[in-house]
C-alpha cells in the first residue's frame, strides 16, 4: 500500500434531497392502524377547529426510500471518522467506540423505554444508574454523581449552579470563578451562564498553574477555581493539591473540569487532589461515540458536603427498591427534562464493565504512553516547538508552530495538509496561550504503527512541502478549502 493512508478515490456527489423529489413520491407507507374506511376518510376539520388547521404543508423532500438511502450513504462517505482514520483531536479523546455497546443500547426493551414508566417496572435500569454512580465515586474518590447533565458544558453549568447555591445558602456573596487561560471555552461560558464572573488566570512557564500565582487572585469574592486537570496542554496540574488547600483556606471551592479524565483513570483519584466537584465527559473517557457533534453525557460528581445540592431527580435505593427521588434539601433543581441521557450512559457503563478493575488502569497508562511517544518523537522533528520539552505530558501533547513556521507552513496549513495524508488534524489554535497551537491526543486505542505514519507525515509536511501546495490543501477532499468568511458574510442557513 501507499506510505500514507491518504489516497484519491471515487466519490459520489449528491444534490440536496429537496431537488431530487418528484411530486407525490414519499419514502414511507402510512399504516392504517386498523381504522375503518369511514375514519380513514376523515379530515382534520372533523376533529379540530378550522382556524388551527395548517393549509400549506411543510415543503419537505418528495423522495422514495431508495433515493433517501442513497443520499445519506453518499453524504456519509464525505466524513472522516474514528472508524476510518487516526483522529488525534486534542482534548476530545477520540478513542474507539466499541460496537457491542452500540448493540446493547439498541436493545428493543431499552431504546423504547418511556422515561415516565413506573419505577417498579424499570428497576434494572435504575440499578444501572445507581451502580454506575458507585463506580464513578470509587474511581474519583468523590461521594455522589448526578447524571442529569447532557454533556460536558451542562455538567460545568450544574457544578457551578451547585457552587452558586452553596454560597447563597451560606449567605456569602461570591461571584468570581478563577479560570486558567488554557481552559476550554465552555468553562467561562458556563460560569457566566450560572451567573458568575469568570476571571482568567495565567498558566505558568511550566505549563501549569502555579499555586503562588493563584494567591494573587484571591479575595472573598472568589467562589471557586475551575481547573482542568490535566489541562488542555496535556500537563498535569502539579500544584493542584496546594491550590486546593489555598482555595479552601480562602473559603472557596475547587471545581475540576474532568473532560481529560482519560489521563489518569484508574491510577489516581481526584479526591486526593482536594477536588470538590467534577464533571466527567462520558462521551470522551468512557468511549461513547461523539456522533458528529453529540449527544454526550456530563456526569457531575461532588464531595460529601455537596451531595444535597445535586440536581433532581436522582436514583435512590431503599428497602430493596430503586426509585426516582427529588428530596435533596438544597437541590439546584432540574437540569434536564428527564433523568439522564440514558442511551449514552448505558454505553459508558458497558464500557467500564468490559474493562473492569483488571484493565481500567491500562487505559490511562497507554493513553499517556502514546501521547509521550508522540511528544518525544515529534519534539525531535519539530525542533524547538515543544514548549514543555523536558516534562512528561499526560494524555495529550501540544506544540507551537515555531518549527513549521520557519519553513513557511502555518498551523492551519499543517492541519489541511494532514487531511491529504489521510489523518484527521489535531486540535489547532487551542489553547490560545500556545502560539499556533497543535494539540495532539492519540488515545490508548491507536497503535505505534499508526502514530509512526502520522509522525512521518508531519515531518514531510513541515519540511518538504512548498507553500504553494500548502495553500491549495486539502486537495484530495470532495470540497477544497472552505470559504468560511463568505459563509459568515452572507449566512445561508437553509435551502
Amino acid at each position, binding site marked *: 500500500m501507499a506510505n500514507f493512508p491518504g489516497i484519491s478515490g471515487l466519490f459520489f456527489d449528491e444534490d440536496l434531497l429537496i431537488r431530487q423529489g418528484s411530486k407525490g413520491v414519499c419514502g414511507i407507507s402510512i399504516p392504517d392502524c386498523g381504522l375503518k374506511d369511514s375514519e380513514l376518510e376523515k379530515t382534520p376539520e372533523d376533529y379540530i377547529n378550522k382556524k388551527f388547521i395548517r393549509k400549506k404543508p411543510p415543503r419537505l423532500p418528495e423522495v422514495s426510500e431508495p433515493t433517501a438511502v442513497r443520499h445519506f450513504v453518499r453524504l456519509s462517505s464525505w466524513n*472522516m471518522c474514528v472508524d476510518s482514520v487516526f483522529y488525534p483531536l486534542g482534548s476530545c479523546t477520540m478513542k474507539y467506540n466499541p460496537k457491542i455497546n452500540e448493540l446493547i443500547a439498541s436493545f428493543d426493551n431499552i431504546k423504547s423505554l418511556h422515561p415516565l414508566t413506573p419505577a417498579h417496572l424499570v428497576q434494572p435500569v435504575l440499578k444501572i444508574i445507581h451502580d454506575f454512580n458507585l463506580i464513578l465515586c470509587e474511581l474519583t474518590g468523590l461521594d455522589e454523581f448526578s447524571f442529569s447533565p447532557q454533556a460536558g458544558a451542562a455538567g460545568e453549568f450544574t457544578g457551578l449552579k451547585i457552587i452558586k447555591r452553596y454560597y447563597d445558602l451560606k449567605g456569602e456573596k461570591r461571584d468570581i470563578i478563577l479560570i486558567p487561560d488554557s481552559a476550554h471555552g465552555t468553562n467561562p461560558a458556563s460560569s457566566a451562564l450560572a451567573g458568575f464572573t469568570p476571571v482568567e488566570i495565567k498558566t505558568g512557564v511550566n505549563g501549569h498553574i502555579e499555586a503562588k500565582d493563584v494567591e494573587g487572585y484571591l479575595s472573598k469574592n472568589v467562589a471557586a477555581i475551575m481547573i482542568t486537570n490535566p489541562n488542555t496542554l496535556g500537563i498535569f496540574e502539579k500544584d493542584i493539591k496546594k491550590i486546593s488547600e489555598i482555595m479552601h483556606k480562602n473559603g472557596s471551592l475547587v471545581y475540576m473540569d474532568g473532560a481529560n479524565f482519560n489521563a489518569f483513570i484508574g491510577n489516581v483519584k481526584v479526591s486526593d487532589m482536594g477536588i470538590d466537584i467534577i464533571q466527567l465527559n462520558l462521551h470522551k473517557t468512557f468511549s461513547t461515540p461523539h456522533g458528529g457533534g453529540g449527544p454526550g453525557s456530563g456526569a457531575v460528581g461532588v464531595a460529601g458536603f455537596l451531595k444535597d445540592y445535586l440536581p433532581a431527580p436522582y436514583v435512590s435505593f431503599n428497602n430493596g427498591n430503586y426509585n426516582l427521588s427529588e428530596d435533596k434539601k438544597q437541590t439546584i433543581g432540574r437540569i434536564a427534562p428527564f433523568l439522564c441521557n440514558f442511551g449514552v450512559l448505558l454505553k459508558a457503563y458497558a464500557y467500564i464493565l468490559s474493562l473492569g478493575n483488571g484493565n481500567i488502569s491500562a487505559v490511562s497508562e497507554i493513553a499517556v504512553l502514546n501521547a509521550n511517544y508522540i511528544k518525544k518523537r515529534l519534539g525531535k522533528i519539530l525542533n524547538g516547538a515543544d514548549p514543555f520539552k523536558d516534562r512528561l505530558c499526560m494524555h495529550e501533547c501540544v506544540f507551537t508552530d515555531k518549527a513549521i513556521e520557519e519553513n513557511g507552513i502555518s498551523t492551519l496549513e499543517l492541519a489541511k495538509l494532514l487531511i491529504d495524508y489521510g489523518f484527521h488534524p489535531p486540535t489547532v489554535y487551542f489553547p490560545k496561550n500556545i502560539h499556533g497551537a497543535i494539540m495532539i491526543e492519540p488515545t490508548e486505542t491507536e497503535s505505534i504503527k499508526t502514530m509512526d505514519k502520522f509522525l512521518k507525515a508531519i515531518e514531510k509536511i513541515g519540511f518538504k512541502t512548498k507553500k504553494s501546495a500548502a495553500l491549495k490543501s486539502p486537495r484530495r477532499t470532495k470540497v477544497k478549502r472552505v470559504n468560511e468568511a463568505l459563509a459568515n458574510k452572507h449566512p445561508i442557513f437553509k435551502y
Partner: protein
Amino acid sequence: MPNFRYFPNSETDVKRIYSILNVEGKKELFEKIIGDIPLIDANNLKTLSRGMDELSLYRYFEDIALKLPDKNRFSIFAGGGVYNHFVPAAIDNLISRSEFYTPYTPYQPEVSQGTLLALFEFQSMAAEILGMDVVNASMYDGAESLAEAILMSLRLYLNANPNQSLQNRQPQNNYSKNEINPHSDHLILISEGINPNYFSVIKSFIGDIKAKIETVKLDRKTGQTDLSDLKLKLKNNVSTVVIQQPNYYGIIEDLGELEPLVHSFSPKPFFVVSSTEPFSFGVINPPGFYNADIFAGEGNSFGNYMNFGGPLLGLFGAKKDYIRQMPGRIVGKTKDAKNKDAYTFILATREQHIRRGAATSNICTNNSLNAVRAAIYLSLCSKRGFKELSLLNLKLAHILYEKLLKTGFFEPWFSGDFFNEFTLSIKNEKITALRFIEKMADKGILAGIQVAESGILVSATENNDMDDIEKYAESAKDIIKTAA
C-alpha cells in the same frame, strides 16, 4: 500491562515506549507526572469486577433487557414530552454507519461535509415544519432549548430596550461583557400549559439571575392559556411570554389570539413558543405562522427512540433578525476554493469556543446525531407522509378519547381541541391515577402520566393501533369498575 481487545499495542510495543521514554514502568510514569498524589491500585476497586468479555457483557445486558417491559407486548400511551413514534429501519441502518456516529463535531469542514449537509437539511426541514426563519443544528432537549430561548429573549429585550438594562454591566475582567445571562430584572410570563419538567429546568436556569417568572393561568374550561389573565399580567417590564403548543395537557393553544396581545404591548415582549410534539405541525399551524419570535422545543418524535428520556433532540428556531443571539451551532452554505458548494458552521463568534464567557450559550457538544436521525426521518416521510402521519396521530388520539369517554368512567378536563394527547380524570374516587396506571401496566399498557390525584395525560401515536386502543378501553373499564 494487560492485553485487552480495545488496545492495539502489544506488551512489547508498550515496553518499547517505556524504554524510549526512559521510564521503568507505570509507577514511575505516573509518579514523575503527578508528584506526591497517591497512586491507587485499580485491582482493588470494589465496585468493579475483573472485566468482561463481549459474550458475558452481552448476556449481562440481555438479562437486564429481559427484566424490562417487553417492548413488543407493551402498549405505550404515555407522552408528556416524549412520544412513542415508529422509527423506520432505514434510519438505524444509516446511523449505524461509522461515518455518521464516530466523528467529532465538524471543526474541519473539508472532511465533514456529510454531517454538515445532513444538518443543513435538518435545519431547512425543521424550519419548514416550524415556519421559523432559522433553526439551529440542535440543542440537548426541549427543556434546555426553552431555557436558553428565554435567556436569549432577555438579551434581545435588553438590546431593544437599552434604557431598561440594569446598573453596571461592564466587564469586571478580561472577558468581554457577559451576554449569555443578562443581569436584568425583567418578568417572564410562562403559561401554566408548559410541561412541568420544562418549568423546573427554566427555574434552574433563571434562578440565579435577577429576572422573575410569573405564570399565566389556563382557562378552566378550554384548557387554553387564559387571555384575560395574560392581559392582566402584561406589564411594563415583561420581556418574554412563553406558550407551549399543544400545551402540556394536550390542548391546542389559540396562538392567533395570544400573539397579537403580546406583540401589541409596548415595550414589546418576545413571544416564545415551545412544543414537545412538533408532529402536530403537520396538521395545525406552526409557531411561525403566528409570528413567534423564538421557537424552542423537543424534536425527538422525528426518527428518535425514547431512550428512557435521553438523548433527545432540542429544537431551536428564531426569526432571521435574531440569529446572532441564537445559542448553538448553525450550519451555513458557502463555497470552496474552487467555487463549489460547501457547508460549514457559521456565526461561530456567538459560541463559547470563540467568545468564551461572552458567548450566547455554553453549549458545545449538542445532539447532532439525533438531528441527523431527524433529517433522515423527515426525508423518508416526505411532504405527503409527514402530513398523513400527523393526521393519523390526530385521529387515533380522538378515537381513543371517544372510546374512553364512552366507558363512562372518564371525564375530560378541558374542552379545547387537542392533537394526539389529552387529559382525563377518572370518575371513580376509589382509584387514583397512579394506581390506575399501575394496574394498567400489569395488563401490558402504559396508560399515561399522572397529572393530578385522579388526572391522567394520555397520548396516542401510529404505534398504537385499534387493537391497542380497544384493549386500553376494555382494560380501563375493568380496572375502574372493580376498584374499591
